């Protein structure tokens, strides 16, 4: 039954561009895929180590700008710019992780917000490098050998592959001794230390992995929209990510995926269905209902309804 459902899902995802009515729908799916990577990256921190980063858009933006600048100024190929974006975002994550060494809870949240604020200011004011608020237009589309991934359909497959890899990275990580160390720190840090889990090492590792994944999402975003501006650092991006993780189910692998797809499609669907006055209202009411009836998120809620699988 589960195998059947998974096969059906895989077939549907792979054939989606063929049966979707318009390229606009493919665009929505591409954005959903990018948000799947982002939400999954935030989930590594929020869901598994319990650290809330409200500056996650900073890692996304660093990835987007790194990739864009390397492609525009140094004419790097996308395939080199993408890992570079991950590396630089990961380095920023390392710096934030070192701070987590001393800070927990609300203080950590404040540091991440401030960090995103500073990075956004740099992107707006360092005119020579980032072109300030005007942004960087004309980022080239990735090419795969002789083929340019310029079309939405081609880019869809690129993002699908990246999202699948991101999911796999999270799955392997959280089911390993490293993932257990993350959980141990979320559940009971003094006890984790008492059995030799080095809290500093693992909190830094979690932020680096999380930030690098967000950097990958940023790079994919930059080469898709072909334009980056300081808007990538908007606080609303971070809030959207948090909603996706919490509503989908933090600390589960499928939660951020479900949350990202749902909350990318929902605003678009509302835009088609109703006038703008009603869009945010319906969105808000749906969110409140969701939190009210499924406080631990959609995926854990459904898991409780379904008969328990014996592992």
């Amino acid at each position, binding site marked *: 039954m589960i195998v059947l459902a998974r096969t059906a899902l895989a077939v549907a995802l792979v054939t989606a561009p063929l049966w979707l009515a318009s390229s606009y729908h493919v665009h929505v799916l591409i954005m959903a895929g990018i948000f799947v990577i982002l939400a999954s990256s935030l989930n590594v921190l929020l869901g598994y180590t319990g650290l809330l980063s409200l500056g996650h858009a900073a890692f996304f933006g660093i990835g987007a700008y790194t990739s864009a600048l390397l492609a525009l100024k140094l004419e790097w190929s996308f395939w080199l710019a993408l890992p570079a974006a991950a590396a630089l975002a990961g380095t920023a994550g390392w710096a934030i992780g070192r701070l987590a060494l001393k800070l927990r809870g609300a203080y950590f949240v404040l540091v991440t917000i401030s960090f995103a604020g500073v990075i956004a200011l740099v992107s707006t004011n360092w005119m020579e490098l980032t072109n300030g608020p005007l942004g960087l237009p004309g980022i080239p589309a990735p090419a795969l050998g002789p083929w340019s991934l310029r079309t939405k359909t081609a880019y869809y497959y690129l993002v699908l592959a990246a999202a699948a890899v991101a999911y796999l*990275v999270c799955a392997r990580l959280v089911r390993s001794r490293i993932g*257990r160390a993350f959980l141990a720190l979320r559940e009971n840090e003094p006890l984790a230390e008492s*059995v030799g889990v080095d809290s500093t090492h693992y909190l830094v590792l979690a932020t680096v992995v999380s930030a690098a994944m967000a950097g990958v999402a940023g790079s994919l975003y930059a080469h898709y929209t072909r334009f980056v501006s300081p808007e990538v650092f908007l606080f609303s991006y971070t809030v959207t990510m948090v909603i996706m993780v919490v509503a989908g189910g933090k600390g589960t692998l499928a939660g951020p995926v479900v949350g990202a797809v749902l909350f990318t499609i929902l605003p678009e669907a509302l835009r088609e269905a109703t006038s703008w006055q009603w869009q945010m209202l319906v969105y808000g009411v749906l969110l409140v209902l969701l939190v009210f009836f499924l406080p631990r998120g959609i995926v854990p809620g459904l898991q409780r309804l379904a008969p328990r699988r014996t592992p």
Partner: protein
Amino acid sequence: MSLAVRGLGVQFGGVTALADVSFAVQPGTITSLIGPNGAGKTTAFNAITGYLRPSRGSVLYDGAPIVGLRPSQISQRGVVRTFQKTSVFPTLSVEANVMIGLHLRGRAGLWRILAGHRSVRAEEARLAAHAAEILAFVGLAHRRQAEASALPYGEQRLVELAVALAAEPRMLLLDEPAAGMTGGEKDIVSGLIRRIRDGGVTVFLVEHDMRMVMGISDTVIVLNNGRVIAEGDPAAIRSHPEVIRAYLGAGAPRG
């Protein structure tokens, strides 16, 4: 493999929790630290295991100083503790709790894990088998899949013990392992502590239950007002005048 505490002092602001405490725990023994509430027993545990930085004095394990090391570094050297208040990983399964305790027995690094290397799966299987052995030892094999916080109190304390044992201690510090347990559960814990010692692990415990302390200890150290007032085998402690005055009282159980 002995633990030596020399001139240990801990100040909290103006309050002296430990004044000048010196004692040694001999390898292969069960040693108990007893004393009235507020005597500084848990403070001593916290200072030894790195959760608290002592104001002065030294702690030597195996001849090497361990003051100033982080708790995880101290447990990596084989000194593992449990906590006075029930302390488990609450929303995780009993098995996952023990698997976390086995953290240092695993070697898999980030890249091998992300690559899905064959050795990682083999290691996981080995750790799971080890976890099953430990759960069988403490008598929780049937609770493997239960969520830790859903267990009755006594069993949660056994989960704690299993987590500590998983970290392969050479010296195990137990902070009131039998507090709040029923008589039957206390007997089970006493039996387990003896078997742990017989397996070559030095056990150092804080406990209020005198029947248990006198029953299992090789050596008893008595703390009062932040000082050691007596040290010796259970018989000597039971008849020590200062201990009777400060802690046991005249009607103390004789055996």
